[in-house]
């Protein structure tokens, strides 16, 4: 079953068109990667889905046309966008950030359980639960950003460069946790990642964007085997 379907999606910032027909689909419980060079339009694709940039084409989530919805309406459909740069709320504590994530939920018990789940997934956050988010390290902020996404109990998570600015070992920890999350929760994922090696540990299939279009799409195994992907994204 397809959960998210993008067909010929276009988007521009002012007069500059940056998405020129992006097509992809994320199956239920699946994980799909978006690779590509800087400026290829990866972030913009996620923004088009979450309603932060105006988009053309077709964006269908769970059988429902969500193109043109406001970001908070998209979130209410069950899509959690964990943005590039993390978007943690600096003046709020870690716990408050998690509660913001749970804003649309009313099941107190479930919320408490999910807070525990996040702290179990990212033990670093447990000791920092009453600290302001701005006092966290970059890695901890990324963990908090993912956790805030978890707290909304989404069916689909949009992850934008969760490894950005992190030491390799921290980035690996974060991806290990996300992989565990994927297995345990069944949340479908659309994963933007510069570090293709990391991405391939998580996703089943991926698409490569070049100047706002799909250049290649395939399974992780296929893509890993291709010379051009190796040269461009896998460091040889």
């Amino acid at each position, binding site marked *: 079953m397809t959960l998210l379907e993008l067909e010929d999606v276009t988007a521009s910032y002012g007069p500059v068109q940056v998405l020129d027909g992006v097509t992809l689909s994320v199956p239920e419980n699946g994980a799909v990667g978006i690779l590509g060079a800087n400026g290829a339009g990866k972030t913009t694709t996620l923004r088009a889905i979450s309603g932060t940039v105006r988009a053309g084409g077709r964006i269908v989530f769970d059988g429902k046309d969500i193109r043109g919805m*406001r970001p*908070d309406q998209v979130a209410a459909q069950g899509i959690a966008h964990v*943005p590039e740069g993390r*978007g943690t*709320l600096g003046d*709020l504590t870690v716990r408050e950030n998690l509660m913001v994530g749970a*804003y649309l939920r009313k099941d107190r018990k479930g919320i408490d359980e999910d807070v525990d789940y996040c702290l179990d997934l990212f033990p670093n956050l447990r000791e920092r639960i009453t600290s302001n988010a701005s006092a966290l390290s970059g890695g901890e902020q990324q963990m908090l950003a993912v956790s805030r996404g978890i707290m*909304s109990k989404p069916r689909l998570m949009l992850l934008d460069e969760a490894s950005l600015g992190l030491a390799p070992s921290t980035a690996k920890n974060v991806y290990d946790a996300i992989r565990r999350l994927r297995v345990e929760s069944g949340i479908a994922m659309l994963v933007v990642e510069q570090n293709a090696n990391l991405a391939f540990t998580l996703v089943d299939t991926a698409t490569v964007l070049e100047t706002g279009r799909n250049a290649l799409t395939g399974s992780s195994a296929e893509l890993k085997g291709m010379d051009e992907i190796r040269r461009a994204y896998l460091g040889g």
Partner: protein
Amino acid sequence: MGEFVQLVVDGLSTGSVYAAIALAIVLVHSATGLVNFAQGGMAVLAAYVAWVLTNQSVPLVVAVLASIVFSFVLGAVVERYLMRRFERGDPDTAVVVTIGLLTLITGIAGWLWSYNNQQFPSLFPLDTVSFLGVSISIRSIGTTLSIVAVMIVLQLLFVRTKLGLALRAVAINPQSAAFSGLPVERLLMVGWGLAAVLGAVAGALVAPQLTLTPGMLDNALVYALAAVILGGLTSPVGVVIAAWMIGVLENLAAVYVPFIGHDLKIAVPFILLFVVLVVRPQGLFGRKTVVRV
């Protein structure tokens, strides 16, 4: 001694009025990044609403409560239909719009109710109480305590409730807040509404003393802005303390510093402001803006 204490208590009372308007300005600024020069004007409009109702023999407390509800709606409507299109644009344009709004509100109030001073009934008796041998006006104490109570309620709202958490989240990062499903636009309306409520409380408390005119809070707005800068835009507590300092110093200087007197006392907060900003450009309690990479 008696005179001194009375001057301090009265100063705290007018300082509380400045504090309420200053906090309203801080609230709007933290949510939308702009300074609302019409905050005092909106409060005056609320006071007129209460005044009109009392003239229709509505009990004063009910009239003031009604004007508070009116203010909440007014604040929300101003945000939704006027300020929204300027909020994330050029801040200079937005500020000019709020000054225009102030002029418009003052003009409408003058046109509807004239520029004459109207008597506004006091919520508190005009007597004094004796405390440790010093007589203190009940109205001053009542005004201060009422505004402190409103601030405490507001603080609890912000810290203890889900709505308050949502308002803080939107003030910090609206786009990121929306990713968690927070209805940013509606929350901004609520923020403006709450700010207007603060102003309305201040207006109703100070109107008996100043008498009601369309420009009743013009001076108070200037003092409130001084308190905002003195306290630091990012520090609500600092802003309240600064407003109290201004209220008290203004009163004391008028009486004890001979050449200042009542004509020059408006200069007092600015002398204070000047001295403080030379020493601490971020205000007494404000944080230095740190640019994060």
